[in-house]
């Protein structure tokens, strides 16, 4: 499990924006992951996605790592932001765009 935590620390440390999700941005395997992808696409940022369905250690480990029981999960600059409900609330309030602007993350190419 500590190996998994190290892997997760590296993933969220090496990438400005990381979405842990079920499936891929092109083929999300769950409506909530699909919604999270749509929100990030609307925000126009580049992000790394991790398909938790491909790795059981990551799938279970991320829940303890984040102290959050569900997928998807968004990290920005190593900080846990929330799941799809929080992403949607923040997006609608303009707070997510603000957070991404403040973090000066790369735009989607």
């Amino acid at each position, binding site marked *: 499990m500590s190996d998994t935590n190290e892997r997760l620390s590296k993933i969220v440390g090496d990438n400005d924006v990381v979405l842990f999700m*079920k499936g891929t941005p092109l083929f999300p*395997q*769950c*409506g*909530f992951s699909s919604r999270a992808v749509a929100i990030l696409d609307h925000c126009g940022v580049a992000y790394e996605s991790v398909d938790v369905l491909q790795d059981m250690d990551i799938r279970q480990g991320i*829940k303890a790592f984040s*102290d*959050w*029981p*569900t*997928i998807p999960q968004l990290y920005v600059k190593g900080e*846990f*932001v*929330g*799941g799809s*409900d*929080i992403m949607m*609330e*923040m997006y609608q309030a303009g707070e997510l765009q603000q957070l991404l602007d403040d973090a000066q993350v790369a735009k989607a190419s």
Partner: protein
Amino acid sequence: MSGPVAREIEILLQEAFLPTRLDVINDSARHHGHSGDDGSGESHFTVVIESAAFVGKSRVDRQRMVNRALGDIPGNRVHALAIRAFAPNEAD
């Protein structure tokens, strides 16, 4: 008519937060046949809760508080639990 999981969620949240408003909404029918629909009819819920316990807490903190109060229900026994947690007098 609420099912056993919905009633368990209600009881746990009543005890943990003494909410001034609590709605446990079963969304499972809207997700029928989606991934995560286990056929139980109790796979997807939305919780709307208002409690003084949430005053001064961030969105993440509030969801963690609710998830913790619900033990192994979120993400395990229930595929999806949307949480809308308010402090008293916050706009819905």
